[in-house]
């Protein structure tokens, strides 16, 4: 098995690089290594180069420089696409085809054995909750329905790697929940997931690793929990420890009374508070439980992009 599902070395894309056109750098020496068993969130403001990166990985566009590998194979290896599922941003399908006809064409292209095609198509339509529209023409579908069919064609071949470009766009809240469940199901089945999204809360919920791209440059990349810095902690005080609660209440930045009579207190990082809790815990080991509070991915994202902006100005 390959060590990295996606690997890029100095991957660069400059649009209009022929001498008579204005050069528009979209991606600048991207170096990315995404290990196996990952749900990777690829983030960035509009125009950062996320879709360009995905199109380079899918060999839809050619790099100006550098190289990229997907599942250990160069991106221009047609055979590797049999192991990949791809959902483009704003999928477009032949409007005159019915949903099951389109999926049948995809099944043929993916070399799914003929005896398994119909069954697999029925399965994926069931997963994306589009079974009742199997015989409807794609041209009559709404944005959300088209997105669901897009997801269906992406998972049709039970891919090793799922690449999703803005998969949540166009979906209603139920559709978003369904897709998040599908992604988690795919992860449980051993599929690696690489996806771009602007909905940071969803990325934070399901991703193990994230990378943030800004103006073609990779600002940061790594394990999500390591990247988000600790801004404080929560202390859940069990009932019957009012003395401790009174000692801590003055320093708490937030407090919530729990249904069982206990308290949920939030604190900024404070050595004094930690000291009080540690000494109380020595005598009453099960009186309190502490949890770190990390900055949100959204806060981290804005911080990184702002830093990048300041560096560029300098």
């Amino acid at each position, binding site marked *: 098995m390959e060590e990295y599902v996606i690997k890029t070395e100095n991957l660069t894309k400059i649009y209009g690089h022929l001498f008579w056109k204005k050069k528009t750098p979209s991606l600048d020496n991207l170096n990315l290594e995404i290990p196996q068993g990952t749900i990777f969130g690829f983030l960035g403001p509009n125009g950062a180069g996320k879709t360009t990166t995905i*199109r380079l990985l*899918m*060999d*839809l*566009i*050619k790099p100006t420089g550098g190289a990229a590998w997907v599942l250990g194979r160069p991106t221009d290896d*047609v*055979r*590797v*696409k*049999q192991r*990949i599922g*791809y959902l*483009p941003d*704003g*999928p*477009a*399908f*032949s409007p*005159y*085809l019915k949903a099951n*006809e389109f999926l049948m*064409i*995809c099944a*043929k*292209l*993916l*070399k799914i054995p003929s005896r398994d095609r119909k069954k697999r198509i029925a399965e994926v339509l069931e997963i994306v909750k589009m079974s009742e529209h199997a015989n409807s023409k794609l041209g009559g579908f709404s944005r959300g329905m088209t997105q669901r069919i897009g997801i269906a*064609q992406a998972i049709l071949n039970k891919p090793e790697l799922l690449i999703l470009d803005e998969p949540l766009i166009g979906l209603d809240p139920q559709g978003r929940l369904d897709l998040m469940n599908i992604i988690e199901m795919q992860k449980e089945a051993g599929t690696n997931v690489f996806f771009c999204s602007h909905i940071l809360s969803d990325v934070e919920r399901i991703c193990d690793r994230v990378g943030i791209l800004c103006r073609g440059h990779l600002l940061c990349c790594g394990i999500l929990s390591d990247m988000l810095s600790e801004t404080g902690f929560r202390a859940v005080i069990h009932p019957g420890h009012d003395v401790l609660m009174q000692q801590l209440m003055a320093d708490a930045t937030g407090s919530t009374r729990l249904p069982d009579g206990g308290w949920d207190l939030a604190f900024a990082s404070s050595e004094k508070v930690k000291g009080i809790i540690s000494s109380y815990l020595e005598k009453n080991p099960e009186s309190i439980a502490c949890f770190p509070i990390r900055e949100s991915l959204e806060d981290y994202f804005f911080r990184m992009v702002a830093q990048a902006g300041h560096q560029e100005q300098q």
Partner: protein
Amino acid sequence: MNEVMAIAGSTWRRILRMKVVYFLLLCVFVLISSAINYDVLSLQENKPLMIDVSLVLNTLAVVLVVIAMTFEIPRELREGVAATLLTKPLGRTQYLVGKCIGSIITAVVISVLITIGFFVIFWLSFGESVVQSLLEAHLLVAASAIPMSAIAVLFSVLLPEMITPILTAIALWFAFSTSRILDSGVGKYFYGGVLPDLDLFNFKSFSMVSAGWPYFALVVIWGIVFSVFALSLASLIFRFKDIK
């Protein structure tokens, strides 16, 4: 090969579901049938007129299918349909070949339908059964779809969407005019043989002399060889094209 035929099949379905195709076929049959009444206007030349009309309409129908193909590939590229297909294990060459084969199949089927319709109307009008030379003439028209489709695919990949149909039509006109161009002194210097000689597929209706099935087979082989050349060129260009 399955992948190529999957693309060809989707192209075939696309054209089959266009209502204008059925309208076109209806118009062709009406026009051929109306040639029965040419004896009112002509000097007993209604039979050759019907033959000429059928060959012209058959050729026009094939040309129209080919011109429709020049809209198909740019549309799929522009709308992102091609991008969805090309992210499957489908080579770019396979995609182009599939489109070409889809166009050829569609044009041939329409041409064969027109041929059958013509012979039925001819038999009903004059009581004459199928003449081999006429059959060859119509089948040559159908076979001309092979190099014409390849030209359409090449131009679709090479040229901007707006001018592809126009330049394809002009190119086909030149290809059908090969003998006139070569006969003229000026033409000899400009015509480099790059365009297919569609005169090879133009079996003059007045000759009524069978050229034989070996000629038909040779012309079809020539058409296939030319198509391979055109598609190879198209594939070379398409290989480096960014798919939006």
